[in-house]
């Protein structure tokens, strides 16, 4: 119990630094893949520091409050996860935080950010089945929804859940806003929606959004780790290796794929989820 509290506090303090560093590595790797020098690894921190020093333009009064709520709920998700709480509860809180982000984007009335917000909802429709099925999978494999019980099981969950793992890594591309599925925020090279749902965020609000994304990424990579970790100490090293490999895979996918329409995104994600996680569920039910 004590270790879980320490882990939760570590997440609270270190996640923005790890998340920012990961984004820095992401940008450096992407630049190298495009034969560029790329920005320094600490670039995301420079960006956020600058944004905190800029004038904060608020388009609609409740916008700042909605972004702060998104931030708080996102942090809460990760804290609950690393404290070893119920996995289902973590994902429910995460979905609630995403809803607040949608409100923050739509409340401004700007057409770009409203379309971005709608696409964010579509993305949620695409990834939620895989996320919920992952919870079911963990329950079927270990007999518990508690993160602490899953993490301290005798064997790694991935032994029973390879299909769920594939489905989860697949939807990670949506959650981490990577290229084929980056429809709502439309990051730098695309811009057909200007900046999608972040169009009307500036200054402190945008900085807070950025930091929430870092918290979210660390939490999501934590869930990837949950598939691997077990009661043996050696598994911690294996977990870290797998998490970093997954992260690298996401960067590679980001740089080697064009954008997709949301219809294709929804179709492909659901097909992958149903085929991999669905088959895995049926097999697990037969074994049990």
């Amino acid at each position, binding site marked *: 119990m004590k270790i879980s509290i320490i882990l939760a506090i570590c997440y609270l303090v270190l996640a923005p630094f790890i998340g920012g560093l990961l984004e820095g590595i992401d940008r450096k790797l992407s630049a190298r893949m495009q034969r560029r*020098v790329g*920005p320094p690894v600490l670039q995301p921190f*420079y960006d956020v520091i600058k944004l905190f*020093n*800029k004038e904060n333009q608020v388009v609609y009064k409740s916008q700042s409050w909605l972004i702060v709520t998104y931030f708080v709920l996102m942090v809460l998700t990760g804290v609950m996860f690393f404290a070893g709480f119920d996995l289902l509860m973590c994902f429910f809180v995460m979905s609630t935080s995403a809803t607040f982000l949608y409100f923050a984007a739509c409340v401004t009335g700007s057409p770009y950010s409203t379309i971005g917000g709608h696409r964010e909802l579509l993305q949620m429709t695409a990834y939620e089945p895989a996320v919920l099925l992952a919870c079911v999978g963990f329950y079927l494999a270990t007999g518990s929804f508690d993160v602490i019980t899953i993490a301290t099981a005798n064997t790694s969950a991935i032994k029973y859940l390879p299909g769920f793992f594939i489905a989860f890594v697949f939807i990670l591309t949506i959650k981490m806003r990577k290229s084929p599925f980056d429809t709502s925020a439309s990051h730098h090279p695309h811009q057909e929606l*200007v*900046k999608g749902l972040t169009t009307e965020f500036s200054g402190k609000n945008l900085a807070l959004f950025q930091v929430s994304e870092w918290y979210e990424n660390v939490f999501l990579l934590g869930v990837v780790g949950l598939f691997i970790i077990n009661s043996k100490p050696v598994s911690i090293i294996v977990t870290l290796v797998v998490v970093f490999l997954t992260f690298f895979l996401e960067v590679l996918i980001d740089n080697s794929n064009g954008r997709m329409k949301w219809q294709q995104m929804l179709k492909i994600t659901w097909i992958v989820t149903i085929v991999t996680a669905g088959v895995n569920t049926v097999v697990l039910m037969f074994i049990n």
Partner: protein
Amino acid sequence: MANITRSPWLLHYDGSSCNGCDIEVLACLTPVYDAERFGIINTGDPMQADIFLITGGVNEQNMPVVKQLYEQMPEPKVVVAVGVCACTGGVFKDCYNIIGGADVAIPVDIYVPGCAARPQAIIDGIVKAVALFQERAQKSEKEVDKVG
């Protein structure tokens, strides 16, 4: 005061340019010049931009657009006029439809001449703009201290 020179985000607006300067601006982002190594991002969103890069002269049609983009940018901000048309109106100066360079609509800080301006010159202009950007941020902070 934090060092904010490492993260200049650009907003690029094509006034009435012939696209020569715009191609050079985009060339700055290609692997050869790679402006991102200075932390430069071409945002396309005035609310997130720090440096306003304008190419081409100003006419009746784009005057309100240029003004609105400038007003939408949060403080501190810097304006860079790229190419001789944005500086003075260039060869189109005496045309009936051209009012003049970018400075007839908004206060321009850095002028990058050339037809078209070379990528090296543009990056040099941005680096100068970044120094001014830091100076302005410090100045506005001092003013806030005085009032507070």
